[in-house]
């Protein structure tokens, strides 16, 4: 697990022009920027400022170490994200980061990598997939279980299809709702965990999605014998500063912004599932 130190002016955003804005689904878009050489690791996030509107934490959805191009995928839920959705290439956004502790890629070496994603939760896991697939020899089976609301909400569909066709990745995709044209799976993603024919004793699971979905996934993964220390989740709390100063993102003793957003279930289990914590 890596902790990356932010630069000293960590509360001041750096204006950075948008290279591209791509519409992913009806309410999800991606913003690419070039931050030069980046230390960003899969699972970390940046704080993005829309000048005059505000600042929001956004997961990094792709990192190109060589070129410094960093992609952020954002769900338009109103407020700052709604204004960001209107920006065009060349417009400047403020960038702070990268922040937080990312996914434990090293802990997954020589093991199966089981990724369970729900909805927009696929975004911080996409760099893990990219990393694992480009270092395929380092890992055993790489499996993605991905639940989405409807077929139209499925993110990175083409990319996933290519990876799957190349035989590098097993993808199980399931939607909650669909029309009769959908030929894929329907139903929540968590029951798919039990159906995987993998050696759970040699598996690292990485889970990201709505909190309740993650709890169901953890139940199932534990039932399959996965140790809490091999099970990682990316948590969402109200992250405002990214560096543990503002206090907003606390979850029990954890500052989600700097101790997380990725935690092992062993670290989290005393604190999740408790009302209003």
């Amino acid at each position, binding site marked *: 697990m890596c902790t990356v130190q932010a630069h000293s002016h960590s509360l001041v955003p750096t204006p950075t022009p948008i290279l591209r804005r791509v519409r992913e689904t009806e*309410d999800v878009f991606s913003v690419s920027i070039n931050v030069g050489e980046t230390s960003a690791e899969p699972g970390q996030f940046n704080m993005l400022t829309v000048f005059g509107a505000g600042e929001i934490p956004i997961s990094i959805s792709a990192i190109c170490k060589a070129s410094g191009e960093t992609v952020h995928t954002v*769900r338009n*839920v109103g407020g700052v994200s709604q204004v960001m959705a209107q920006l065009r290439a060349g417009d400047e956004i403020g960038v702070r980061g990268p922040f937080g502790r990312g996914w434990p890629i090293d802990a997954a070496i020589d093991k199966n990598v089981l990724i369970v994603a*729900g*909805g*927009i939760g696929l975004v911080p896991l996409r760099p893990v997939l990219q990393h694992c697939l480009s270092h395929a020899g380092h890992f055993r089976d790489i499996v993605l279980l991905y*639940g*989405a*609301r409807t077929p139209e*909400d499925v993110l990175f569909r083409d990319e996933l299809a290519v990876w799957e066709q190349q035989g590098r990745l097993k993808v199980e995709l*399931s939607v*909650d*709702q*669909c*029309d*009769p044209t*959908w*030929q*894929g*799976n*329907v*139903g*929540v993603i*968590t*029951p798919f965990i039990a*159906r995987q024919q993998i050696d759970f004793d040699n598996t690292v699971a990485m889970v990201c*999605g*709505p909190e*309740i*979905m993650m709890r*169901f996934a953890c139940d199932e993964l534990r039932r399959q014998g996965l140790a809490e220390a091999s099970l990682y989740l990316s948590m969402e709390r109200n992250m405002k500063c990214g560096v543990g100063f503002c206090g907003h993102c606390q979850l029990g003793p954890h500052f989600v912004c700097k101790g997380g957003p990725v935690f092992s279930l062993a670290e989290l289990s005393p604190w999740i599932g408790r009302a209003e914590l």
Partner: protein
Amino acid sequence: MQTIEQLLAAHPFYLDMKPEYLAELAACAQLKVFKANQKLATVDQSADAFYVIRSGRVAIELETPPRGRITLQTLSTGEVIGWSWLFPPYRWEFDVRAIDTVHTVALDGKCLRGKCNQNLEMGWDLMQRFSRIMAARIKATRLQILDVYRAGA
């Protein structure tokens, strides 16, 4: 070639079931293959069997005017479909349709009920297996109706 008994023993639903029970159940079973789009079950029709899915995928559906056919859930290899045979009036409450070619072991409901009434211990074993599936499906359904991926959820 595997016997039906062996096929059942290899299926997760029958994990660790006593061999004598498997032999009893196999006597009520036959292999059945459904082509894509073929129905395994139709609403209100007599529920004569339940299906152990050996391969392929099925959809549990409802015809809901004016939206048309809605898929509520899909099930695939390693799962079972159908418990309407267990209780009167023994009628299907949903449509079940094969999405692709589906290989199943079909277990005859009337035959099973008879065997379970004679051998209550075996009936209890089978009932526990069904209950576990029902509980898991209810849990999944609850999560599904939460619609956790909608904006602002």
